[in-house]
């Protein structure tokens, strides 16, 4: 059967087959080992990479709490906004994608690349929002070119929406991305870079209530970044609703009047019984909506470079000499300390000599003999110089403190500055010779010299005078909804409480009423509201001494700039009605020259208050300010010189 040689042939065939079989077994052993290395030895690393491939955590930004006014009208809310983000992990060529995105959206390459650069230490799978508040056109363009823009996504986020035109900007403040330095602080613990927090105003003070808790979506995506399914969702928790003490109609009236008169400045209207702020402004302001949309570097630089400093809140951070408004503090101090009675008469001959130096009254011929009521009505300097001679600076400091003019008022806005009234103790430490000179007290008596106060300090002083001696911190929040309906924020304990003798109080209030309501009054009836007994006091705050003013203005004019920056600031402090006051406050107009120019603004806001209270139609504002064609008045017409003569 077998051919010759077939046996050997078969032997060699079997041998060769055995070799092949052995080689195959060897190869399979190598293959199995390779899988062992990948699937067992490197499992942890590769499993992690597989997770990162297809799992995404997409943050859901919590809407911040809505702000209401005291009557429940919505002031600040949230609207839907689109933002465009880049996920670097899904972007093969980040630079190319940025270039493409710039071309599609019209945003400069530098701007987009700058954002990406700032966030380069973030994990590469986290979306970097490069265009906040994208327009519909930008969103449409990005979606249309999705294939050329790998790793670019469009997210919908709630965005803060403030009233148009920056109304009450300094009340609300603004929001912005949490800064790297802030992340270290306890109040911001647990936040991711890019979280939105309050950076100014109430947004900052009440950030923890307003912020809410951001949520997350955990989704599965495919290799093209398309979402396949949502695995889990942690819903964001909305920020708390907050009701402010602000009355939006008064707020509007206030800013409308400032705008109509063309003044910058600051103002606050308080409820003297509670310290609640009914209206508050600082001008110029900014539009918080610009910040909500992610402020552009150009806008930010412009705001910071503006010499008028629109980002600063003058009401709580501006320090000015109170001028004649300080006479109210002097009056109460002198009465309560028994230095004078309401009937004490002091004679004014146009000037007087104290400690060997002549101090002038603003009225050249003098006011003659007068009591406190008329001294307040006509703002007689000599009368108050005399009180300054008869009281120590420490007594004045004590009463200024009791009325709210020393230190911070404690208003619930960030970065308030302290008002300052001098004392011998202060002089001891702050001055090289450690001395306080009695002659200085005479200047302090009319709000000049080493006296500097914030407008909110003066508003608080007027509220304290209005309520008879209870010093309360102004506050802007009435109630917070923590989830179970409105919870009224309890009235905090007063900072100080003194019972001012009713007779003394009546004398001061009469004087202030007369200042506004009589023809002799320095308010020259500009603040008067028939039947409402507005009581108040004007004052001027010098920017430069009267002697230096003309020269400074001339050089300013020569340089082609507005010489008005050397004009005095005007004060009007007030409460109304005289008996049982319901509103007290301050209006501060920058470079208005005359305190009485602040009065019409206050009057208009008060009219709005009373009209609203009594259900009448709200008034309309008519500006009485003549456009300042010639900003420099005849210098000689004004009192001054010597130890300080401002103050009507």
């Amino acid at each position: 059967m077998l051919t010759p040689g077939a046996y050997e042939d078969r032997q060699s065939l079997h041998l060769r087959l055995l070799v092949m079989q052995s080689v195959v077994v060897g190869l399979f052993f190598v293959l199995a080992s390779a899988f062992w290395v990948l699937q067992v030895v490197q499992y942890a690393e590769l499993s992690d990479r597989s997770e990162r491939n297809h799992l995404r955590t997409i943050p859901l930004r919590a809407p911040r709490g809505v702000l209401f006014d005291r009557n429940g009208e919505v002031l600040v809310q949230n609207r839907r906004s689109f933002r465009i983000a880049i996920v670097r992990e899904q972007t093969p060529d980040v630079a190319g994608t940025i270039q493409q995105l710039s071309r599609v959206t019209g945003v400069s390459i530098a701007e987009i690349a700058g954002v990406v650069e700032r966030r380069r230490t973030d994990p590469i799978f986290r979306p970097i929002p490069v265009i906040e508040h994208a327009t519909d056109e930008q969103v449409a363009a990005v979606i249309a070119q999705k294939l050329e823009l790998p790793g670019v996504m469009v997210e919908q986020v709630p965005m803060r929406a403030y009233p148009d035109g920056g109304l009450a900007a300094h009340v609300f403040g603004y929001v912005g991305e949490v800064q790297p330095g802030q992340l270290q602080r306890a109040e911001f613990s647990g936040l991711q870079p890019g979280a939105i927090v309050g950076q100014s105003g109430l947004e900052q003070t009440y950030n923890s209530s307003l912020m809410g808790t951001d949520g997350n979506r955990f989704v599965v995506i495919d290799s093209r970044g398309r979402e396949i399914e949502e695995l889990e969702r942690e819903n964001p928790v909305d920020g708390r609703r907050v009701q402010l003490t602000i009355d939006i109609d008064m707020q509007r009236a206030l800013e409308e009047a400032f705008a109509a008169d063309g003044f910058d400045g600051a103002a606050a209207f308080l409820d003297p019984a509670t310290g609640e702020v009914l209206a508050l402004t600082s001008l110029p302001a900014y539009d918080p909506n610009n910040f909500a949309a992610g402020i552009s570097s150009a806008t930010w630089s412009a705001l910071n470079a503006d010499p008028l400093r629109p980002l600063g809140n003058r009401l709580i951070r501006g320090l000015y000499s109170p001028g004649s408004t300080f006479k109210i503090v002097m009056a109460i101090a002198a009465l309560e300390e028994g230095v004078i009675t309401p009937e004490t008469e002091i004679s004014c001959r146009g000037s007087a000599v104290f400690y060997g130096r002549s101090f002038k009254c603003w009225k050249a011929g003098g006011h003659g003999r007068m009591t406190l009521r008329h001294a307040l009505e006509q703002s007689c300097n000599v009368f108050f110089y005399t009180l300054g001679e008869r009281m120590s600076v420490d007594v004045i400091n004590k009463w200024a403190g009791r009325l709210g003019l020393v230190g911070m008022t404690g208003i619930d806005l960030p970065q308030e500055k302290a008002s300052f009234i001098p004392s011998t103790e202060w002089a001891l430490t702050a001055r090289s010779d450690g001395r306080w000179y009695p002659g200085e007290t005479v200047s302090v008596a009319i709000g000049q010299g080493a006296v500097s106060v914030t407008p909110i300090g003066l508003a608080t002083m007027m509220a304290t005078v209005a309520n008879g001696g209870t010093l309360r911190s102004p506050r802007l929040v009435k109630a917070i909804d923590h989830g179970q309906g409105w919870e009224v924020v309890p009235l905090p304990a007063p900072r100080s409480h003194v019972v001012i003798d009713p007779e003394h109080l009546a004398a001061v209030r009469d004087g202030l009423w007369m200042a506004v309501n009589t023809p002799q009054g320095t308010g020259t009836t500009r603040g008067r509201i028939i039947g409402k007994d507005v009581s108040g006091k004007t004052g001027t705050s010098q920017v430069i001494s009267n002697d230096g003013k003309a020269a400074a203005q001339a050089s300013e004019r020569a340089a082609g700039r507005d010489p008005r920056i050397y004009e005095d600031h005007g004060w009007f402090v007030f409460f109304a009605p005289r008996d049982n006051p319901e509103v007290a406050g301050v209006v501060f107009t920058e470079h208005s020259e005359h305190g009485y120019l602040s009065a019409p603004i206050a009057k208009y806001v008060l009219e709005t208050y009373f009209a609203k209270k009594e259900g009448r139609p709200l008034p309309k504002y008519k500006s009485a300010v003549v456009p300042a064609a010639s900003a420099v008045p005849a210098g000689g017409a004004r009192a001054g010189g010597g130890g300080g003569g401002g103050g009507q």
Partner: protein
Amino acid sequence: MIVERRLLPHLDWSLIAAVLLLTLIGLLTIYSVTWNIQAGQPGAEFWRQAAFIPVGFFVLAICVAVDYRALTQRSPAIFAVLLLALVAVLLFGTVVKGSRRWIDLGIAPLQPSEFARLALALVLAMLYGDGRRSARSLGELVFGAGLLALPAFLIYRQPDLGTAVTLVPVFAGIAYMAGLRLRWLVGALLMTALLSPVIWTYGLKDYQQGRVLTFLDPYKDPQGDGYQQIQARVTVGSGGLVGKGFRQGTQGAYRFLPEAHNDFVLAVLAEEQGFAGVIIVLGLYLFVIWRSLEAARLAKDRVGAFLVVGLVSWFTFQVVYNISMQAGLAPVKGLTLPLMSYGGSSLVATLAGFGLILNVRMRRFTN
């Protein structure tokens, strides 16, 4: 063509079972990876593959039924038909992804290159197995190499270098069994090594060079050429010991790994069934190869033994290369995993090959 009943007990049922099992595992993996979440059903690839499995086994049955000697005796004619088909593809074929591989037969497109190895194995088995020829002499060797070169060149021109290369093991396996002297083998390897710079420069296209470079360092271009290799590693590795579970894989299903149902079907299985699943599949392949070589050992004549060795050599080469590639041991090349990967022509041609292997073993006692 009815198989004689007395032959049926000699049919290798365990080999058939192992082959069937591998095709079904492949089908289930395709089911899993093409699953469409939105539609709630597997992709069209699954249904096509499912339809080709019975077709393939029908062809396998035919290849068992006809006596292999009848085929080897007609192998010159079969080989000629194949060459004509390959020429026809070059002239009239359909272009897919830059290659002309398909010819439309009306009912289904056919990929003649998949059947080239069958024809080559038949004609080489005939050449070296019939009579007293051997591959000992250089002349015989060159003649056999010439038979290899004809279809290989035509396929290379499609261009489909991968499939062309798979013809080489058919020749090498048969030549080795036919007594190819070791010095020729060593000489050929040496020659290849010496010529490799020339082949590199003139023989390989840019993208082919790129594949080799990428294999050496996939992170050189992690989003481009290296992407597939990196993702294959991630896919396999993330499966761990027992895998993520059926239809729980993410790498293939969400398209992070391209060609998941095709060249990288084992990677998907590794992801979903883990190292345990891989070992079962490797074991089945090893069993199939081992068992097929047993058929060569049992063959009643040299023609049968050489035919089996030619087919097994190809099968082993492609299985080992594909799995090496999925394990990250070889550069990414468009070679499918026989029996498991998606592809109708490939499956039918492979099953036809196993039909011939079974054929040889079944007829070991016949005259």
